[in-house]
């Protein structure tokens, strides 16, 4: 099921009945069409259409793809940053450890959404209006990533400090391995376990954060909507009768997050050599 979701999202540009982002293909006359199984619906617009005549199914597929993409990228960014800092802090100790942990402490006192909003806001002010839409995605990724790295760093630092004292690390030092090699080859494989757990949970969180930000209007724009944006757009029409514009993207979001979590569980078990 997970694979179906992910596969569908990735394949969106090819299978969507309509390219929802090509303004030329939009026909305002088709706006506000209800889903196919209700009166007034048509097969061409299977899940109905939104206020600008976009086919909802296509929009959802594309949106899911963006949501997933942003989520994954943000988590990867946070992971790389957090794990590197955590490893370095745990293994080297001393002032590096103290510095990293203080930065982490400061960052933890800000809620993730706030940080993301902050970074996003700064980006919007700093960059010209035309460029804003284009760089929305990278900014979003960095924003979400920066708010999330601390968890990885903390966990990895703790595990690294434990592993560092173990005799196989001592053995590697006796052999003459350099600290960087020891960190990457010996310690890292043994501390990645909890990281993967956090990571998979965080993909879901990142997707939701992104959806929240888009819902609030500071995420992805309507010209390139993610699921969150779609929900926001549809929200305005919820009580005027065109419920499908909000509901279907909402359902899609929930399904996507659920399937990501399941995928994460499976991945963790599969990667543990002791269970093979």
């Amino acid at each position, binding site marked *: 099921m997970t694979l179906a979701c992910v596969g569908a999202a990735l394949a969106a540009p090819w299978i969507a009945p309509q390219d929802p982002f090509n303004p030329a293909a939009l026909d305002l006359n088709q706006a506000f069409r209800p889903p196919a199984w209700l009166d007034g619906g048509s097969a061409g617009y299977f899940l109905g259409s939104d206020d600008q005549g976009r086919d909802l199914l296509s929009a959802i597929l594309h949106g899911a793809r963006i949501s997933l993409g942003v989520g994954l990228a943000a988590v990867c960014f946070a992971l790389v940053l957090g794990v590197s800092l955590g490893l370095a802090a745990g293994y080297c100790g001393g002032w590096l450890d103290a510095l990293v942990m203080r930065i982490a402490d400061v960052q933890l006192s800000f809620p993730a959404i706030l940080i993301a909003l902050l970074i996003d806001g700064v980006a919007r002010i700093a960059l010209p209006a035309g460029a804003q839409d284009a760089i929305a995605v990278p900014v979003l990724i960095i924003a979400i990533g920066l708010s999330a790295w601390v968890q990885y760093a903390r966990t990895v630092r703790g595990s690294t400090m434990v592993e560092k004292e*173990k*005799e*196989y690390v*001592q*053995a*590697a*030092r*006796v*052999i*003459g*391995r350099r600290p960087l090699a020891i960190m990457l080859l*010996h310690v890292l*494989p*043994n501390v990645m376990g909890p990281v993967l757990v956090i990571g998979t949970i965080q993909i879901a969180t990142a997707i939701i954060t992104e959806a929240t930000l888009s819902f609030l209007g500071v995420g992805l724009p309507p010209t390139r909507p993610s699921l969150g944006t779609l929900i926001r757009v549809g929200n305005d029409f919820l009580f005027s009768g065109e419920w499908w514009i909000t509901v279907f993207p909402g359902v899609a979001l929930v399904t996507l997050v659920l399937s990501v979590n399941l995928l994460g569980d499976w991945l963790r078990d599969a990667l543990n*050599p*002791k269970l093979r």
Partner: protein
Amino acid sequence: MRAPLLSVKAVSRDFDVSRPWLDRVLEGEGRRLLRAVDGLTLEVRHGETLALVGESGCGKSTVARLMVGLDAPSDGRIEFRGQRRQMIFQSPYASLNPRWRVRDIVAEPIRVLRLARKAEVGGRVVQLLAQVGLSADDGEKYPHEFSGGQRQRISIARALSGEPDLLICDEPTSALDVSVQAQILNLMAELQRRLALTYVFISHNLAVVSQIADRVGVMYLGRLVELAPAGELFSHPRHPYTRMLLEAVPQIERTGEPRTPVAGEVPNPLAPPPGCSFHPRCPHADERCRRERPELIDAVACHAVQEGRISFAR
């Protein structure tokens, strides 16, 4: 006479165990230093097995790390005249990386030290595994698939793959069952014969040490109190602590005999007694022992022995 393979000259090692800076300042406390090794001097000769025995807290593990180069002395010098040294650790469970396959674990020293060409590494690993009694197939497995004794064999294979002149063994059999211990000790003895190795064997188990050592050094609170050939030490122990240790070992031969158990216990290493650190527990302690630290003279660090106050009637 050949120069010794390893010389330890008046080596001390201090650990800073002070409380966090803020706490110290608030309570007006100074720094706290734990002297784990205190003025140790000895040498390791080619081809011998030198054992270091003592109870917990005597500093023998620290000495092991100093000897193999994992740690540097705070004072004094360590001179190693060989090519390479390797170490075998106590815990069979923590000494092998659980995420690496055995063949990679054993091959690591060869690769890092560039002791063989890439193409030869595989063959060398198989050879080493065979030397310690394991098969080539075992190379494909992960450490958790092996028992404690087998893991120590893997550790030995890894150490040997580094082609060391000196092998430091830190309690290598303490975590093993008696019958497995016998296998490992026999294996180590055989490897020493075949490969002309030199061992430093750290242990708290006097019986094991009596089996495999040529010379034995007894440590107490970071100091060397006696150093003698094994036969000598076990038949004519001189330092009161050595005698106490030997008395305390449960002996199978003396089933059912009543014994006088030893007195007291090892003091806190952070606050060692002044003078001779053993004096609170020593039946022969006098005023000088309380003030003055005995030097290692004629392989014994004890005023009473040096002054001839202890008789060795046997």
